[in-house]
């Protein structure tokens, strides 16, 4: 396996190279950039395929993973203390290696189609022409983003590279590198249309602010994570996954009390503390409560590709990390009492799953629904890790990535179609308001016949999300989590079950509002199927959304279990751990319950939204049922407003008023100025002294001399002969004196 290092290093290198090539050379040409990016990602895909093949054909991959590395930072005694960087392909990594390049490639293909054209409103200030004025008095101008789009490919190439770095990293620091670069990419991509404004929607968050929000919110989690990494590194002397996680001695060593002197934190072990710090990073990255608010706003990114990145890939990184660090999180776990990090994960995950699902129910933006469903599904996985369902979490991570990617691309396809429809309608003379929102599901309806490919694939994705039994991948993975929860932690199970019901319901609501019935606007009426570059990924992903689940069917599952070869996924991924987790015995109860929940949710949704499709200007039927709760849900429990009130404004106020103006300007500078004034005062007193006493004395002397010399100044006639006469006369006198003294006396 000499080439493993090279291959593994080349996998992320190729998109990263594409990033630089596009930015430096081809950024003026959309076509060239597309080609560069496509070549890069296909190259990566091929390499990843080779590597995946190598990994799958390696026996006992768990014990002897494919690795390669080099000294990155020579520290202290170069041999023992240096920090090494390298790649690692173990079973868990192989899973990532499967779906990350796959979805990434699909995204690339899709983006080339999606980003082909587009324009939007931007605000202009100052004097000059403008195309429209909205109700808030802002001058608007149509901004043609075509020229801007080439770099989009660069950003997603960077993104893909970072995600691949993260997937292949053999240590936490390298993972963190990929992690943060993805943070940057999310910021850039969400804010891609940074100058876009929404006419007549002043309260709606703009892409620019959404990007900053995403970056900052995840950074809140990243900072503790960095501390956690530092702590782990200083405690173990290494960051290598294998050396920490595959090493019982190290794990044992980590299982000591962290703060023996602090009563409040008395019971926290080092592993627990580090685990929680790391999990904080995951909270930010995977948008768990309470740092979930950035993800829905991230939907302001170019529809829907960046959103898909955030939903399907990047957010997976958080979950991937906690799955990866599971041995650390569970250090000291005996199979029964959950460790502190696990408890936290289980509760946060479960709560998030339900909490996000409730919000999703009341959203009307096609992408926001999906965003909240993503949060909810990530909560599933986090909770799964929390209760120790390691394999199930990894399984759901994979399937969810696939079908959520499918759904987002589908929604993007829908939006694209509606936007085109709007433009068509515009050409046909229908007047459209400047604030037409192509993402609002209430502006759609009846798209089934107009965009059939999208509709079918979207339906497949939706069903997978809801866990439609047997034929969708989502069913299998979700079922495994639920089964685990059922076996270990009933509370978590029931919370997740409730979330699953809501998931099924809002999925059906979305499908109904979008595709069913008759078009509610001209735009929807004129919508047409988009081109092949956007359809191909849908089809491919739909295929995987159906069949990807069959790798992890429980051995004990009737018929299918035996047919599909005995839970390959479980054994494969399970071998990543030091001690392969035991597969649960097959149990009917959770399976039936989950089937029932999913189907009932779908049914209710069908009854409300598909059987009697909404007409134009109709209100959401839920509004009547839920009343004020609907408003609460629609406003996401007012979390944005809350955070704004307790974090954003105070920090601004503190930094401006307290730190800068009060501390720096008034106290410190004030003190300095006081000192300066004091010395100035002193100096002026000194000057007075000088002026009146010293100078007075000196001046009077000088004046006296001046007056005296005034009378002598006429001597200075400028006549050389006069001078000489006087001088010689003087000399003569002297000579006379001498003569008298020497001769006459």
């Amino acid at each position, binding site marked *: 396996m000499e080439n493993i290092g090279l291959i593994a290093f080349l996998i992320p290198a190729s998109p990263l190279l594409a990033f630089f090539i596009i930015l430096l050379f081809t950024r003026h040409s959309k076509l060239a950039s597309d080609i560069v990016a496509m070549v890069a990602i296909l190259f990566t895909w091929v390499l990843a395929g080779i590597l995946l093949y190598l990994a799958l054909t390696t026996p006992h991959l768990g014990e002897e993973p494919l690795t390669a590395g080099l000294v990155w930072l020579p520290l202290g005694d170069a041999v023992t203390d240096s920090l090494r960087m390298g790649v690692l392909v173990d079973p868990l990594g192989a899973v990532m290696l499967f779906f990350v390049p796959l979805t990434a490639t699909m995204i690339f293909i899709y983006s080339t189609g999606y980003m082909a054209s587009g324009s939007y409103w931007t605000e202009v200030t100052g004097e000059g022409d403008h195309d429209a004025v909205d109700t808030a008095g802002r001058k608007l101008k149509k901004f043609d983003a075509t020229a801007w789009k080439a770099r989009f490919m660069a950003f997603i190439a960077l993104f893909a590279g970072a995600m691949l770095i993260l997937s292949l990293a053999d240590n936490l620091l390298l993972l963190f590198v990929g992690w943060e670069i993805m943070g940057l990419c999310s910021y850039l991509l969400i804010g891609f249309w940074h100058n876009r404004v929404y006419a007549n929607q002043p309260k709606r968050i703009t892409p620019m602010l959404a990007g900053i929000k995403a970056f900052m919110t995840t950074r809140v989690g990243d900072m503790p994570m960095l501390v956690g990494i530092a702590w782990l590194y200083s405690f173990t002397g290494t960051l290598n996954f294998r050396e920490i996680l595959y090493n019982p001695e190290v794990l044992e060593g980590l299982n000591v009390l962290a703060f023996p002197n602090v009563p409040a934190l008395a019971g926290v072990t080092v592993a627990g503390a580090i685990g929680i710090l790391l999990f904080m990073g995951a909270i930010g990255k995977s948008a768990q409560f309470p740092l979930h608010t950035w993800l829905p706003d991230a939907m302001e990114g170019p529809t829907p590709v960046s959103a898909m990145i955030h939903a399907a890939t990047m957010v997976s990184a958080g979950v991937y990390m906690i799955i990866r660090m599971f041995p650390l999180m569970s250090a000291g776990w005996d199979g029964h009492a959950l460790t502190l990090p696990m408890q936290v994960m289980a509760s946060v995950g479960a709560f998030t799953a339900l909490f996000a699902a409730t919000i999703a129910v009341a959203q009307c933006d096609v992408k926001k629904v999906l965003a909240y469903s993503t949060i909810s599904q990530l909560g599933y996985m986090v909770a799964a890790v929390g209760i120790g369902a390691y394999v199930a979490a990894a399984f759901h991570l994979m399937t969810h990535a696939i079908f959520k990617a499918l759904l987002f691309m589908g929604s993007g396809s829908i939006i694209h179609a509606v936007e085109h429809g709007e433009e068509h309608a515009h050409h046909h003379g229908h007047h459209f308001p400047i604030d037409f929102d192509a993402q609002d599901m209430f502006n759609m309806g009846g798209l089934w016949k107009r965009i059939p490919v999208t509709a079918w694939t979207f339906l497949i994705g939706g069903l997978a999300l809801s866990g439609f039994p047997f034929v969708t991948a989502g069913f299998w993975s979700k079922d495994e989590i639920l089964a685990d929860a059922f076996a270990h932690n009933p509370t978590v199970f029931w919370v997740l079950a409730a979330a699953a019901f809501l998931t099924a319901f809002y999925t059906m609501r979305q499908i109904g509002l979008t595709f069913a019935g008759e078009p509610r606007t001209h735009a929807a009426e004129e919508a047409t199927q988009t081109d092949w570059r956007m359809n191909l990924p849908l089809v491919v992903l739909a295929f995987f959304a159906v069949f990807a689940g069959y790798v992890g069917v429980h051995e004990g599952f009737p018929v299918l279990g035996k047919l599909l070869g005995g839970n390959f996924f479980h054994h494969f991924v399970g071998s990543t751990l030091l001690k392969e987790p035991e597969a649960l015995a097959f149990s009917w109860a959770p399976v039936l319950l989950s089937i029932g929940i999913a189907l009932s949710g779908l049914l209710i949704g069908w009854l409300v939204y598909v059987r009697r499709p909404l007409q134009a200007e109709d209100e959401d039927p839920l509004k009547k049922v839920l009343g004020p709760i609907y408003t609460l849900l629609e406003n996401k429990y007012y979390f944005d407003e809350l955070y704004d009130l307790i974090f954003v404004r105070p920090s601004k106020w503190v930094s401006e008023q307290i730190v800068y103006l009060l501390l720096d300007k008034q106290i410190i500078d004030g003190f300095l100025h006081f000192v300066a004034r004091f010395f100035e005062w002193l100096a002026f007193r000194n000057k007075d002294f000088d002026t009146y006493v010293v100078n007075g004395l000196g001046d009077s002397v000088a004046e006296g001399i001046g007056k005296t010399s005034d009378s002598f100044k006429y001597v200075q006639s400028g006549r050389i*002969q*006069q001078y000489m*006469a006087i001088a*010689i*006369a003087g000399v*003569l006198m002297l*000579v*006379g004196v001498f*003569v008298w003294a020497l*001769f006459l006396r």
Partner: protein
Amino acid sequence: MVITPVTIAFFIMAAFTLGGSLGVVTNRNLFHAALYLILALFGAAGLFVLLEAPFLAAVQVLIYVGAISVLIAITIMVTRRIMGVESANRQWPLSALVGLLLAATLGFVIMDRFAGKFPVAGVPDDSLTRLGMALVSYEGMEAYLVPFEVASVLLLAAMIGAIVVARK
């Protein structure tokens, strides 16, 4: 006092010198003053000869008569527009007094200290050679290399200075 040709020559030369000097300082015609200067300088050269320093006499004639006087004459010619004005300024009585006093003082001192002295020895034969050597040697009793070089530099500087000042 014995009248010898040498004494006669001395008196003639002394008369030249003092008469010429008087002419220089009193003559109203500047050009004539210059001529008197030449006369005085010739007298001085003659005195040098009498003092058995023929080399200095030749140099005196060469430099003063051949160079400086010519320069002075040319300067007078170039600036002749002021010819014919009063020769002395208003402080001439004072100056005369000073001159007289000076002469008196000097005369007194000379008479007091140097009256009636005669040469202690004859001039050595090789004096000219020794003088030449003295000017270019840097060790021994008579080492004038450094002053000689300084004087050369002075002359060079004066030459350049004179050219720079007088051109335009």
